[in-house]
């Protein structure tokens, strides 16, 4: 199993994770994905790539370094993002009862191993 698929596999095994994908943030395109039915990977890639880019600029304007983790929480679930090297971002779409703490740890670790 390739490194990328291994990374996606680890993230999707966390309870409550409905899908994981590796995104090229600047393009908003999918590099690799592992998604359950009902998760629109293309939309997730495009929208999360754009949002992470904007949050990175906001954080930098606020004097912070490039984000290591982003958690967008909504009424019916969350989108998690862990920027990696070379403009890649590891993204997960999770249910409201997901173990976000565990997903976060797996994603930060996985994103670091992508280089």
């Amino acid at each position: 199993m390739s490194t990328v698929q291994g990374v996606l596999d680890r993230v999707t095994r966390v309870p409550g994770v409905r899908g994981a994908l590796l995104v090229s943030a600047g393009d908003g395109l999918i590099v690799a994905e592992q998604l359950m039915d009902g998760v629109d990977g293309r939309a997730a890639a495009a929208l999360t790539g754009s949002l992470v880019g904007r949050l990175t600029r906001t954080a930098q304007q606020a004097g912070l370094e490039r984000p290591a983790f982003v958690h967008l929480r909504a009424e019916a679930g969350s989108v998690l993002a862990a920027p990696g090297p070379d403009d890649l971002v590891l993204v997960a779409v999770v249910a409201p009862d997901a173990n976000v703490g565990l997903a976060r740890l797996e994603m930060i670790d996985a994103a670091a191993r992508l280089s």
Partner: protein
Amino acid sequence: MRALEPWVVEPLEVFLAESSARLTLLMTSSGQVVAQHGFSRSLDVMTAAALGAGIVASTEEIARLMGVTRFAGLVHHGERQSCMLSAFGTPRGRWIGLVVFGPETSVGIVQLFFEQMVAQLVSSAPREQAPPPTLAENFESELDASLKALFGRT
């Protein structure tokens, strides 16, 4: 933004708002312009429409030679601006979209909302009889009338 047909306006407005596209051209596969946004000169519109239709026709021929179904679209990545060309079917025949965008958006966002626009165009196109084919002797006067409508000059 200007359009020859009123039912094109709302889907195109939504696309422009969501995608942050800088220039957009919708045309028939023969290069007849249906709607435009961002162009300031009629000559640029005509040139872009003709070139865009030509590029799509060439690309579809390549696909045919390869034995594959049509390509969904093509993207040219530039240093400061990029361009996407995509052909799609409507009740009014095959159309082409040409979108120019900058680094403030992304190809993923443009493609995502372009597909949504296509779905809206298909669902909102009036289901009436197709207009008769354009005769050569009417072409110039029709083109002239279209360009005047697209640039707001009566």
